[in-house]
Each structure stands twice: as C-alpha cells, then as structure tokens.
C-alpha cells in the first residue's frame, strides 16, 4: 500500500510536468494543426536558462530561496516564450501554406538546431543544479512520508494549468485562440489577427514548457541537452491520450500518463518504463484515436 501511494504521488508529480509540456503541444496543434517537435527542446532550454541563472548570480543568499526561484521562474517563462515566438517566425511561418510533410521536417530540423545549440554552448556532459535550494523536508500525508518538493511541483503545475484554463475560457484573447483553433478564415472574418494569435500561442506554450524544465531541473538536479526529447515525446503521447487540440485533455492526459508510468515502473519493470508510454500510445490510437476528452473530428484519423 505504501509503495502504491508513493508511486501515485510520484506519478502525479511527473504527470504534472508532462501536462505542462503537453499543453504546449496541444495549443500549437489546435491553432496550426502542426506537431511542434521542437517543443521538448524548448523545455530543455528552460532548464538550462535556469541553470545559468542559478549558477551566475547569487540572489538566493540575498532574497531567500522562494522569492528568487519565483522571480527566476517568471524570467525563464518569458525568455522561453520569446524563443518560441522566434521559432515560429523562422521555421513555421514560411511553411504556413505548404503541405504537412514540409512542416514536420522543418520542426524536426528546428529540434535538432535547438538541442545542438544547447550542446555547443553548455557542453555534452551532464550539468547539475545547485543542491538544497529548497528545504528538504518531508510531509506526513495519510501516515506516509512524501517529499515536500514533489507536492510543490504538483501544486505549481496545477496552479499554472488552472491559470491557463481560466485565461483561455474567460478572456477575449483566450476566446480568440479558441476561434483560431476552429477555423483560420472565419476567425479572420471576425476581425481576429490570426498571426498575432499564433504568436501569442507560441509564447504561452513554450513558456509553460520552460517552467516545466526549470521545475524538473530543481527536482531531479541533472540536466542533459537531450533530456527534452524523451519528455517531449511522452508529453505528446499525453496530449494524444487526452485528445489533441483539447486543453483540459492535455492536463488529464499528462496526469494519467504520469501515474500509469510510475505504477508500471513499480509493478511491471523499471527497465521498460519508457516502452510503457509508447504501448499506451498505440493502444489509444487503435481504441480511441480522438483521445479521452477529444471532440468528434470529421476527418478520419
């Protein structure tokens, strides 16, 4: 029972990360019908910018850990968001009218460029975040000991997702995003500047991914320029599980995939952990391709 509960919280925490990255995939897909392969590398970029910030400046001593990390978090989100906008301008906008294969190849190329740029700048070896920034306490929940950091990660992910959900549902820009996701032409007729909305989406999605990267760096402590690839792929699987193009779906899919993976690693085998995610993908695509919360799509999948 203890193992189950530990793995459940573990899975939820990592699922929160998957959900944040999956939100980036699903928003971009909803608006452009394109799978942004470079998204995982923007996640890595967030982690590495966090690394640079933490090792270059020593604000932690001056302001205390929590405000510093919050400030860095916001800074990272902004910078990675800007990187997302640049990515869209350079690699995707010229191919807006081309066929899908060209956009996919361009996305792959962008992914290779970003991850290798990170490698050239920071080196190919693993980098390590400074330790013990946040208190290393363990909470006592329902009689089990759970690390505080794990719960913090989960809570932060849920808070960010809630903010995004309210933004998309209640604000004008959010409504515009939903309109562009339905139909570009009709949105234009309603007076929406489609290019601007796409840029906004390419700011928000990567910003969330960058925040996820920072959190992963703080929790696991280790960085590698290829870490974004596996996270990105699993986050894409999470988005598909929930229904791609669907924002609550991405959140649900992420949490679900995290829990399935953690429980699978504990009860089946830890060596096959990554393969479990791909098996789940294949099953979902065979059984329910539109995803759990997906809308009925007219064209065949």
């Amino acid at each position: 029972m203890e193992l189950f509960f530990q793995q459940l919280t573990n899975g939820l925490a990592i699922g929160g990360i998957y959900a944040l990255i999956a939100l980036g995939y699903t928003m971009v897909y909803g608006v452009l019908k394109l799978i942004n392969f470079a998204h995982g590398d923007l996640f890595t970029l967030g982690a590495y910018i966090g690394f640079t910030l933490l090792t270059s400046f020593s604000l932690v001593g001056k302001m205390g850990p929590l405000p510093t990390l919050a400030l860095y978090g916001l800074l990272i989100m902004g910078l990675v968001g800007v990187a997302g906008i640049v990515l869209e301008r350079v690699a995707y906008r010229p191919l807006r009218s081309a066929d899908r294969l060209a956009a996919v190849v361009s996305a792959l190329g962008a992914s290779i460029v970003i991850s290798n740029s990170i490698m050239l700048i920071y080196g190919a070896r693993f980098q390590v975040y400074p330790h013990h920034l946040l208190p290393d306490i363990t909470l006592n929940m329902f009689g089990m000991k759970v690390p505080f950091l794990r719960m913090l990660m989960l809570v932060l992910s849920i808070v960010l997702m809630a903010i995004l959900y309210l933004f998309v549902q209640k604000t004008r820009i959010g409504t515009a995003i939903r309109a562009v996701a339905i139909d570009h032409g009709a949105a234009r007729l309603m007076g929406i500047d489609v290019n601007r909305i796409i840029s906004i989406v390419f700011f928000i999605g990567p910003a969330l991914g960058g925040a996820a990267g920072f959190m992963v760096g703080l929790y696991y402590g280790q960085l590698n320029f290829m870490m974004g690839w596996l996270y990105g792929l699993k986050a894409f699987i999470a988005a598909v599980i929930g229904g791609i193009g669907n924002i609550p779906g991405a959140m649900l899919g992420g949490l679900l995939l995290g829990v399935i993976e953690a429980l699978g690693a504990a009860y089946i085998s830890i060596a096959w952990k990554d393969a479990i995610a791909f098996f789940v993908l294949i099953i979902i695509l065979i059984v329910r391709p539109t995803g759990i919360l997906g809308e009925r799509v007219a064209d065949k999948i």
Partner: protein
Amino acid sequence: MKKKNYAIALVCILFFLSPLVFNAYWVDVLNNIGIYAILALSLNFILGDTGLFHMGHAAFYAVGAYTTAILNTMYHIPVIWLIPFSGLTAAIFGYLVARPIIHLRGDYLLIVTIGIVEIVRIALVNNIFGITGGSNGIFGISRPHIFGLVIRRPEQFFYYIWIFVAVSVYLFHRLRNSRFGRALNYIKEDEVAAEGTGVNISRYKLIAFVLGAFWAGMVGNIYASKMTIISPESFTFWESVVLFCIVILGGSGSINGVILGSFLLIGLPEIFREFAQARMLIFGLAMIVMMIFRPQGILPPPPRKYRIPSIN
C-alpha cells in the same frame, strides 16, 4: 537522351573502378554510403512512393541485423544464406506492427513509428528472450563466403554492397513503373480518390510497409556481416532521422535523388570532419532551409509520362 545515358554509364563504370583509386578509409566511406543508399531506397518505397510518414525504419533494419547475428552465432548458418531469412523476419515484424496502425493519418503514424523504433531499441537493450545480448550486443558474426571467397577487405565489400545497390535500384525502378507502383502513387497523391476508384488502400499500404521492411532486413544482414559486431546503439531513432532526411532532402519518390542524398548526407560529414561538433547543427539548419526553399528535395522524381497512342 542518348548522350545522357552514355554519360551516366560512364560515371557508373568509373565509380565501379574507384576501389583502385581510393585508399581503404574512403572505400569504407563509400561502403557506408552504399548501405545507407539501400536503406534509403527501401524507406523511399514507403515514404516517397506511398507517402507514409515512417520514422521507425531503423527498427526493421535492427530486426534483420539481429536475426542474422543470432542465427549465425548460435547455429553457425552461413551469412549469405541468412540474407533472405533476415528479410523475411523483418517483413513479418513489419506486418505485425503495421497492421494495427496502417489507417492512421500522417502525424499520428509518425509518432507511432517513432514509438516502435524506441520499443525495439529498449527490447534489445533489455535482452528480450535472453538472446539479444543486452546493451553489449552480439559479436563474432562471421563474414560472407561466396564460393570459397571470404569477403573481408573494404574493396571486396565495396563490390558486394554496390552490386546489391545496383540490383535494388533496378528492382525499385521496375516496381515504381509497374501497376503496383502506380497504385502507390495514386495513394500518395490523393488517398480518398484512390479508395473511391477501387484501390484497396489498406492492403497496398501494408504491402508497401512489408516490402520496405523486407529490404531493410536484408541490409541489416549485410551490415552485421560487415561489422561482425552489432549493438543497439546502431539502431536508434537518430538512424531513422538520418534515413528520413536522406529521402526527403534528396528527393522523395526519386531513386536518383535518394542516392544523391546518401552521398551528401553520409559523405559530406566525412569530408568536413573538423566541424564534427557542429555537424548535427548544420544538419538541422539544412533541413529547415531546404523545406522553406526547396521542399521537393534536390532531385525530385521526374513526372510520370504516359504516351498516348496517336489517332491516325
């Protein structure tokens, strides 16, 4: 037209004489180019001729190579006899994985094929069924024997591989211009219209997958006997990416384009070895730039010409 054919024939003859001119290192580079060329031709059949987004080709390659390695090291069957058998196992594997996913649309098929190549790699590393040797791989694969001649040196492998390339080019060329190839082209251009005209798209797509897998399995055999050691590192997702790029950047659907793509993508990094660190970066940039400025590839396939019989 005739002059062009003479020029091509001359280039081919000169090329087949190249082991006499180059030293062993460059002949080995040419061997590598040859292996990737055949792999890319088999991927071209799936991706370029049929339009299926397939990023898991390294999985079929791996199945063929490991079949050869296991059967050769455990039962000492000569490598040459295992060529069709590796192709067969890869084809069966291709059928099993493609059957449930063949109806998926482009982007989803792409991600699932990535998943397949990852599952295969993880299975190989985890020593599935206890015969794959884990992450160390399998060593001690014997060289091919043809009528008593052991193919061991790079020059001998050059002829072995490039004759295989020539045969592959011929066969794929004939396949492209056959009724089957025309059906695949129809599926690539407009799937819905093809199905409406009576082309059974699931069946043809599946056959395309299986044929491509069969060919990749045979190349796996050649690779295993050339290296005598294989390990899961040779069959990662990045191999699939390289093959995918060779097909797309060279010219998807075009045999000449694919061969040119192999020369460029495998040969150029060898020439620019000093920039080894930035190699992948330039690779990625080239992908983006090519897609913006020349998405059909360097040598796109020639448009299909059908001669209409004259009236009188």
